[in-house]
């Protein structure tokens, strides 16, 4: 019987991005940014735009697939899909869903994308006024736990206390993202290096562990990648990168309401990560570079532990700037600058960077990178993750 996995069945043919902007600074409307990113991905792949026949996205994506298909003059739309709930946690799931559709023959050329003008849509401004609220949120909003930083610091504090992890570990994560952004002219924080002193002097957002530089930015931009059957690679412009595995979901009652997940101090990857590695047929030590969604550095810390890169008790030792940077670090991490310093495309920029690394095109290239892991979400439910590899990893 044929193995029921995605391993090697689909390839990422193209990647495309709009220009990236500070929040509210895009002169281009959101839908037009999405179109720009999609056209750039098709051009990169060497694929006629009219071959696109599907779209997959996540979070509260506003650029609707049917409008995209009409705008692009697509002859046929065979697949449109939005990963359910979890905000940025659906990023790798969107690619997984696109890959599943292509592997199953539902569609042949599926765009995975995200477009955001956070300024225009007042994202992150917070709830103003005092409307009535009910359900889950009603049990924490009235206590001043409203923003994601406030929601997630509670998990991070417990995890760091349980394992004796100090704030220098989080500082190394923030500094690695900023370090890589200095090599990436696309990055919003290009030319704005972060020093230890500036990190330590930055204001507290939520004590005990989250300072300003532990938090992602809000940005404007769009990014896209194109998923095609593995058989197409011989006709493509770029070195092919294959999907080895993609996972999504939660473990036992991880979404239990009002902060009642049994495993509370978690990034949400304890059930996904073993499944991901098993499907891909690789181990954590095989991974050449990790691209981990940074909503907050504390979530990255837990995500790295849950993906088996080190044990929680080794975090203080492992999480140094030296270990996290390309080309020579033990685990080059967020080599484009990520959500903290490249652009907060809700993790899509990190998926694209994983592809770029395996093509050998990163601005912070890991020598001979063959396997890259990307994880979406930390601390939300559901989360998702993926492993991509070069042809020699198949």
């Amino acid at each position: 019987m044929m193995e029921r996995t995605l391993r090697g069945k689909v390839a990422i043919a193209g990647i495309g991005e709009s220009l990236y902007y500070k929040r509210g600074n895009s002169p281009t409307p959101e839908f037009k940014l999405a179109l720009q990113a999609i056209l750039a991905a098709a051009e990169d792949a060497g694929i006629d735009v009219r071959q696109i026949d599907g779209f997959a996205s996540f979070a509260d994506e506003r650029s609707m697939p049917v409008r995209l298909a009409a705008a692009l003059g697509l002859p046929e739309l065979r697949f449109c899909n939005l990963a359910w709930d979890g905000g940025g946690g659906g990023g790798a799931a969107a690619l997984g869903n696109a890959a599943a559709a292509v592997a199953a023959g539902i569609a042949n050329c599926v765009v995975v994308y995200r477009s955001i003008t956070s300024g225009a849509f007042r994202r992150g401004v917070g709830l103003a006024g005092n409307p009535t609220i009910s359900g889950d949120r009603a049990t924490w909003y009235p206590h001043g736990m409203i923003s994601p930083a406030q929601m997630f610091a509670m998990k991070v504090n417990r995890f760091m206390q349980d394992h004796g992890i100090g704030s220098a570990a989080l500082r190394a994560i923030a500094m690695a993202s900023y370090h890589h952004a200095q090599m990436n002219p696309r990055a919003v924080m290009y030319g704005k290096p972060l020093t230890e002193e500036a990190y330590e002097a930055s204001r507290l957002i939520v004590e005990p562990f989250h300072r300003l530089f532990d938090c992602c930015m809000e940005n404007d931009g769009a990014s896209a990648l194109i998923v095609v059957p593995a058989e197409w690679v011989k006709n493509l412009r770029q070195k092919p990168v294959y999907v080895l595995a993609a996972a999504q979901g939660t473990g036992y009652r991880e979404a239990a309401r009002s902060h009642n997940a049994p495993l509370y101090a978690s990034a949400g990857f304890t059930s996904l990560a073993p499944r991901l590695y098993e499907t891909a047929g690789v181990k954590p030590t095989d991974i050449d570079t990790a691209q981990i969604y940074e909503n907050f550095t504390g979530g990255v810390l837990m995500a790295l532990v849950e993906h088996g890169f080190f044990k929680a008790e080794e975090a203080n030792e492992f999480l140094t700037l030296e270990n996290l940077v390309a080309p020579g670090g033990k685990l080059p991490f967020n080599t484009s600058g990520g959500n903290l310093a490249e652009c907060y495309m809700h993790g899509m920029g990190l998926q694209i960077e994983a592809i770029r690394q395996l093509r050998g095109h990163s601005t912070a290239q890991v020598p001979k990178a063959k396997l890259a892991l990307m994880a979406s979400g930390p601390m939300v439910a559901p989360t998702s993750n993926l492993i991509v590899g070069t042809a020699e990893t198949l």
Partner: protein
Amino acid sequence: MTYLAEGLPVPVAEDDGLDAPYWDGARQRRLMIQRCSKCGTFQWGPEWLCHSCLSFEIDWVEIKPTGRIYSWERVWHPTHPALKEQGPYLVILVELPHAGNVRMIGNLLGDPLQAVQTGSAVAADFEDHKREDHSYTLVQWRLAKS
């Protein structure tokens, strides 16, 4: 005097009534939590069936309102406009040993700059918010002698 400035979102029971016994109980200074009448499993937040034995027969029971701090945070950057002048404040996650260790979010009353220890014993303090419509009571917490 409430712990946080007035003007935050106002909690009301869900339209389908699922959590109404909790909010009604709080107004009467009673901490109400779901417990399965078949298998005795405590459940919070509320749901229509028991996650353990899948029975729909779930009761609301009054719980001794004491617990211990499971985790905590001190917020320095408020996001809601009503908290602009608030200054730092403490949010805690309280574990309820009298209800199968379910947890709930609240504020730790007292000095917002006090040192906080995970594991500290706390007791509920019911905080009334009187309004023309949708008056509500929040379950808040104070340090208790353990």
